[in-house]
């Protein structure tokens, strides 16, 4: 497809055989000397996972063995026990986070794509202005707008509802930006052909634009799902009751009460549950994300 960047970068062909050999050699060295850095990066994660599956007596061994000797799921049972004394079960927190993240993901992709389509393909009045406002919104963190957002959400009566956790996050500037950059790469002739065939604009959007920009919205799905999944600030402000607390909040509560030894393992079981979905999602989508991000430069 014409809109895709080159699939895999091969070795640049070199004319002479010795040069090629040297190049190979240097590449091999890179694999080796970059390894310790990569190891250093993942060791904290490996510990998180291994702590989650370590039995109690192994948690305090020193130096902490990288892998559990007798893996067990005790910690997860501990987690259930530790949270059973709370007013709501831990599964409720998981449910809240899953519902919020999935809704934000679907909503962001849908609204972002809908808005990006005319921006990319119509001769719209004021589209440069709109786009530059959105770009500006990329330049500050959402925390800055949190107070008025809180006031608005409060006024709309949405505090302590899923609405408060979902709706304010839907108009993601990155969403419009990514989708617009990518949609500009879709050949206009395709749309033109569909129009000549009598397709309506919604149909063109749904049947041509969306399928062709699948890598872009897959990326956007990740970039909206993961921050929402991990978000701490928004639920901290917008929720009141225990039954609306998300995974990160609950984990912080469990963690800060981790004075007893039994809690210690439970915390890592919880951390493991929190870490897993984003990582799996990325592993699953890595290729598509990289394809899309190639379009994300800011042209000036």
């Amino acid at each position, binding site marked *: 497809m014409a809109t895709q960047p*080159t699939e895999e*970068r091969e070795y*640049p062909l*070199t004319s002479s055989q010795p040069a090629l050999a040297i190049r190979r050699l240097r590449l091999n060295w*890179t694999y080796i000397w970059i390894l310790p*850095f*990569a*190891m250093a*990066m*993942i060791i*904290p*994660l490996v*510990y*998180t996972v291994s*702590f989650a599956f370590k039995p109690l007596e192994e948690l305090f061994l*020193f130096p*902490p063995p990288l892998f559990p000797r007798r893996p067990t799921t005790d910690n997860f049972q501990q987690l259930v026990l530790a949270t059973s004394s709370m007013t709501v079960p831990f599964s409720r927190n998981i449910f809240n986070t899953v519902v919020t993240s999935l809704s934000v993901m679907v909503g962001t992709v849908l*609204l972002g794509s*809908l*808005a990006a389509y005319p921006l990319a393909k*119509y*001769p*719209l*009045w004021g589209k440069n202005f709109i786009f530059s*406002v*959105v770009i500006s919104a*990329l*330049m500050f963190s959402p*925390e*800055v*707008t*949190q*107070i*008025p957002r809180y*006031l608005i959400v409060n006024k709309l009566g949405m505090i302590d509802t899923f609405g408060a956790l979902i*709706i304010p996050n*839907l*108009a993601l500037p990155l969403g419009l930006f990514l989708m617009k950059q990518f949609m500009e790469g879709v050949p206009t002739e395709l*749309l*033109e052909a569909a129009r*000549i065939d009598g397709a309506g*604009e919604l149909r063109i959007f749904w049947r041509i634009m969306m399928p062709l920009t699948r890598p872009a919205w897959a990326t956007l799905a990740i970039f909206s799902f993961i921050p929402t999944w*991990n978000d*701490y600030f928004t639920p901290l*402000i917008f929720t009141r009751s225990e039954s609306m607390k998300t995974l*990160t909040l609950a984990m912080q509560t469990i*963690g800060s009460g981790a004075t007893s030894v039994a809690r210690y393992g439970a915390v890592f079981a919880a*951390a493991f549950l*929190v*870490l897993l979905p*984003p*990582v799996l999602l*990325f592993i699953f989508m*890595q290729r598509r*994300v*990289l*394809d899309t991000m*190639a379009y994300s430069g*800011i042209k*000036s």
Partner: protein
Amino acid sequence: MRTPIQRKEEREKRREKGEDGSYFSALPSHSYPLGSLKERMRSEGRWQLIGYAFMAPYLLLFLIFVVGPVMSAIYLSFTYFNILEAPHWIGWTNYRALLVDDEIFLIAIGNTLTFAFITGPVSFIASFLLAWLLNRMRFRSLYVLAFYTPSIGSAIAAAFVWRILLSGDRYGTLNNALIRLGALDEPIQFLAEQVYIMPAIIVVSLWMSLGTGFLVFLAGLQTVPKELYEAGKMDGVPNVWVELIKITLPIMRPQLLFGTVISIVNSFAVFQVAVALVGFPSPLYAGHVIITHLYDYAFIRFEMGYASAIAVLLFAFTFMLGRVCLRLFSSED
């Protein structure tokens, strides 16, 4: 399915009715069909209508939850507002109090600036160099995963393991290792002693910082045309460093701009890592950053006007820094 001939007939029928103008006007202006000015204006209006209908849901939410809040934050920052009573105008008082009287805010600014000026550039450069190195390797998926994964994990979850690694007793992994090596006699309170708190936050944040920017660079590098490297080689580019500076960097400029913006925003928005690692409030405010201060005044003391002034200062600062960086990068040639 209609045959091409049928389609052509339909097309001609539409053209006779003068309907097709509307279809073509979605194309760039040079391809507008000929028609009377009135007709063209009408079809033009139709496209504006459809276009804005598509954008309506996004724009509505964007106005309510992004543009509106920025505007009202600016207004609120000039008022005294405690949620219970209506805000009343007090002019520059909040700003004066913030910048002159609030010593803790000055600590927060200091901490945030220290943090930003270390993490921002270091993570930007590390992201680029790593992306560049990985791009030259053939089997890089696992490496990409290793470097990127820390940034997609929850800061709260990551803080648990870091609290063990940096724990202040003899069982803390780092302390224990240092004591065994003979470098230390007594364990260091990395997360409680004032001098070590900010460095600890910086280390953990750097660990988590190879995120979006890293991916953007990695993807951008894949789009640099191979022919350019070939051409460079023929023109006698002596080594990979010259190749990097003369060929790769100029082509990567849009991605570099994007990465700059991302890293500025992220480095001034430090909050989650700080709170998760050293708690709130942190010992002697050593881990106190601008957003912690904002959170304190807005959602604990409910002094919304004062907190808005903090938000506006942060907003103005990151925004201007972002603009300056964009200008610097984009006006090179």
